[in-house]
């Protein structure tokens, strides 16, 4: 079952293509049927968030290039890298949302993506510059026995 490999996908920077990006992650992961479907679902969501940010960033900077997804299915993990040509950002300077209990929380309809990614993936790393951003998401697999 250890047929592994790298799959790459280029999509137009438009929200309609997010579904395709998720499908590719799901299908790439399906190459290894031993993967926990829950973790694959987590990865699909994390990648979708990263790709949504990539699309937003490129639309904002007026770039017409495509978004790149690179899925690398290895023995014990799946790694997806989402790359855009937007103008980058400062991950440490992204404002925190008000506490969920506070009434102002409802004023914020966005700003959940990065924290969601970090919660869902086992590893999240962001490389960003004014020429673009690459977000690397890793989900590691535990064999059925280890999984609790």
């Amino acid at each position, binding site marked *: 079952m250890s047929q592994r490999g790298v799959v790459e996908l280029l999509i137009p920077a438009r*929200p*309609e293509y*997010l*579904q395709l990006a*998720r499908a590719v992650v799901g299908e790439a992961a399906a190459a290894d049927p031993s993967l926990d479907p*829950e973790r694959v*679902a987590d990865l*699909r*969501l994390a990648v*979708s*968030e990263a790709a*949504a940010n990539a*699309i937003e960033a490129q639309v904002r900077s007026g770039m017409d290039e495509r978004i790149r997804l690179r899925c690398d299915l290895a023995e014990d993990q799946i790694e997806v890298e989402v790359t855009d040509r937007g103008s980058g950002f400062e991950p440490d300077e992204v404002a925190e949302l008000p506490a*969920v*209990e506070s009434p102002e*929380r*409802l*004023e*914020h*309809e*966005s700003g*959940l*993506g990065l*924290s*969601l990614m970090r*919660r*869902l993936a086992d590893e999240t790393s962001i490389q960003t510059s004014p020429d673009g951003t690459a977000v690397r998401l890793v989900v590691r697999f535990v064999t059925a026995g280890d999984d609790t």
Partner: protein
Amino acid sequence: MHLELQCIPRDPWTVLALRGDLDMAGAPRLRQEVARLVAEGRTHLVLDLRSVDFLDSTGLGAVIGALRRVRSHDGELLIACPEPRLRRVFTSCDLDRVFVLHDDVDAAVGAPA
């Protein structure tokens, strides 16, 4: 499109049933529909997410926006969302503390406010 919306009157509630993916592509349609309903005076909404296959943070943002909008018109928003995978998205964003997630529409409209 990947998201379908259907409105079902259920006095005094209006059920807004979604089908498909509530993501960055679908969220604007939810926002529009909620705006339209509230403008018509339908401020007591039940979001039926039972047939939603996928929910992301932008979709969740549109749900937050819907809550704020109906509340600002003295309305209320209930949510039917039985599917554990979708519930996890609320939980992961700590929004299970803002919304009560019901198993179905009956349970939602029958629950004490």
